[in-house]
């Protein structure tokens, strides 16, 4: 996997722009759309945007995945120097670990949200958030 992918400046910030746009679209859905399911869809789109942002922040140009697979090591002796050399060409693993957690958490929240939607529909027989406001003031 050694293609020099991001040398062109057009794509330099394409990931950031896309991620932010996805976040904004998700937010728009959550803030404007009236249907509860749409709001939840908005929230999950938003999650996707944040995850993309996190991963792209951790990207290192022409890096490899942070796995010391036999293919990568080949026949090098595993000394500390070699490991350091190899690791310099790897992308940042920390954001990946964070995103892993964030995805699962996001799914958990979505599941809870959707079960609330079902409860709300059962109670109000509508999904319009403007009609679900018994609690106010």
């Amino acid at each position, binding site marked *: 996997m050694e293609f020099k992918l991001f040398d062109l400046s057009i794509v330099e910030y394409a990931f950031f722009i896309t991620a*932010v746009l996805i976040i904004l679209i998700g937010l728009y859905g959550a803030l*404007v759309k009236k249907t509860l399911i749409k709001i939840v869809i908005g929230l999950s789109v938003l999650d996707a945007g944040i995850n993309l942002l996190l991963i792209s922040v951790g990207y290192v140009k022409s890096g490899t995945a942070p796995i010391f697979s036999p293919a990568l090591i080949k026949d090098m002796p595993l000394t500390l120097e070699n490991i350091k050399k190899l690791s310099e060409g790897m992308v940042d*693993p920390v954001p990946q670990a964070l995103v892993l*957690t964030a995805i699962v958490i996001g799914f958990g929240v979505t599941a809870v949200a959707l079960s609330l939607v079902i409860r709300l529909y059962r109670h109000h027989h509508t999904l319009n958030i403007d009609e679900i406001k018994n609690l106010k003031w």
Partner: protein
Amino acid sequence: MKKILVLSLLAVFGVYLLEVLFKIDFGHQFFLHGVKDFYLTTSPDKMGVANVVTAIVVNFRGFDTLGEVTVLFLATTAMSSILYKGRHQLGERAVLFSSSRIVMTGSKLLFPAIILLGAYVFIHGHLTPGGGFQGGVIIATGFLLMLLSYEDYKVSHVALSLVESLAGITFASVGLLGFLNGGTFLQNFLPTGGLNNLISGGVIPIIYIAVGFKVGAELTGLIYTALNEKD
């Protein structure tokens, strides 16, 4: 009106966010002494874990993972609590679509393969991409397939919560066993083994297997709860 307000709010928010993000030099990391260098060298060198992400998820930041597993556990509990209708009214299974015989047979054939794949993924979590979560999710999709193709497919509630609880207890207990030899919570107390061996990485595979079982059971339970929900 509301749309315009929201759009302008979002525009301001986006502009300010992008303004800052553009200062990040994409593909180059700004900081010099981050924690990642340590992770990247220590993981293969001292822990015998080839997949650094796994090392981070399970060991360096294993506490997060414990929390994450708890979040899923809570989501399952929360979902069944929210959708609970009372002692005497258990809902019927929702039928999303009726499946043909081909689908049924196909899923029956696929099911063991999927489960096997899931197990493979979480057992090899410290060597290859993937791990407890991924494996667990794959297993859950296997059950999902069965639940979708067979209307009367039942998953034992007791078994699910047994697996879930035992896996969770395993995780927490392995963590507590770290206190042996005067160590700390979640500390490795097993020999690490050689890099890229299946039996390596100390407690990491054990934890990841526990996570795999737990996630699989939790997600299956979650889908099962959701599917049993019908008006």
